[in-house]
């Protein structure tokens, strides 16, 4: 069940782009309860100098999930997704995501290691605009529980 260590450093090209919709931003803001009008009110966002509604910072998870899905589906990696839990998540922001952004994610495998019978893989997603402007970098640590951990 060990992961294929040769996959470290592997890079996956963006699988299509993601267009950040204004109503998605409103829905996400509602779901996490943020109250600042720059996440919900177009006039307020523009008055604060933004082109459109500002996405709450953790909306980047939508792209992080897309990014890690690309990795777990790589048959050469040998990851059993039914055993995977999300261990850690980190974001580094170049600027806030705003509604209207069309984003692409380039994914790479930063590390693979084994500890206490569990496989751990760190994936990195570089989220950028269509013209290559970096927006957010995301790191996800996925932990695949070892079969013996069930005993």
């Amino acid at each position, binding site marked *: 069940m060990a992961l294929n260590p040769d996959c470290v450093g592997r890079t996956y090209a963006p699988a299509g782009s993601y267009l950040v919709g204004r109503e998605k931003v409103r829905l996400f803001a509602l779901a996490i309860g943020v109250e600042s009008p720059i996440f919900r009110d177009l006039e307020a966002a523009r008055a604060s100098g933004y082109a459109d509604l500002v996405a709450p910072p953790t909306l980047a998870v939508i792209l992080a999930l897309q990014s890690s899905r690309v990795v777990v589906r790589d048959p050469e990696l040998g990851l059993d997704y039914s055993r995977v839990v999300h261990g850690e998540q980190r974001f*580094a922001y170049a600027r806030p995501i705003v509604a209207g952004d069309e984003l692409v994610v380039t994914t790479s495998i930063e590390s693979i290691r084994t500890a206490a019978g569990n496989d751990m893989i760190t994936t990195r997603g570089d989220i950028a605009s269509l013209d290559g402007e970096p927006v957010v970098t995301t790191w996800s640590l996925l932990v695949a529980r070892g079969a013996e951990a069930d005993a």
Partner: protein
Amino acid sequence: MSPRLADVEVGHELPTQTFRVTRADLIRYAGASGDFNVIHWNQRIATEVGLPDVIAHGMLTMALAARVVTDWLEDPAALVEYGVRFTRPVVVPDDDAGALLQVSAKVTALAEDGTAQIAVTASCEGATVLGRAQAVVRLA
């Protein structure tokens, strides 16, 4: 007013917040985030895989904890970095009371480049649910 670097020192505590998380919140977050993993809404499957009950999305816990920082910052552009480790699930019972998530945060370091490091603590029923939860913010 957004906080200013000159007004902040190491040890400064951000306003603490308590968030109530109910099953309805999990459904709403599933739709907003696109994470439809059944352990976040189906008690039967959750208990079958060994969980005590339905659990909140780790990313929802992460998002709520971030609010303590972003509500304080006002301008989200000031958030440079944010990361957490998911150490314990937030169990969400099928009732109106849900689970209560308590989040506090304080400034742990100030750097010469105008950034501040903030340690975030999130707990549910007295047990911490996030580890190494840290934000880096840029203050004017």
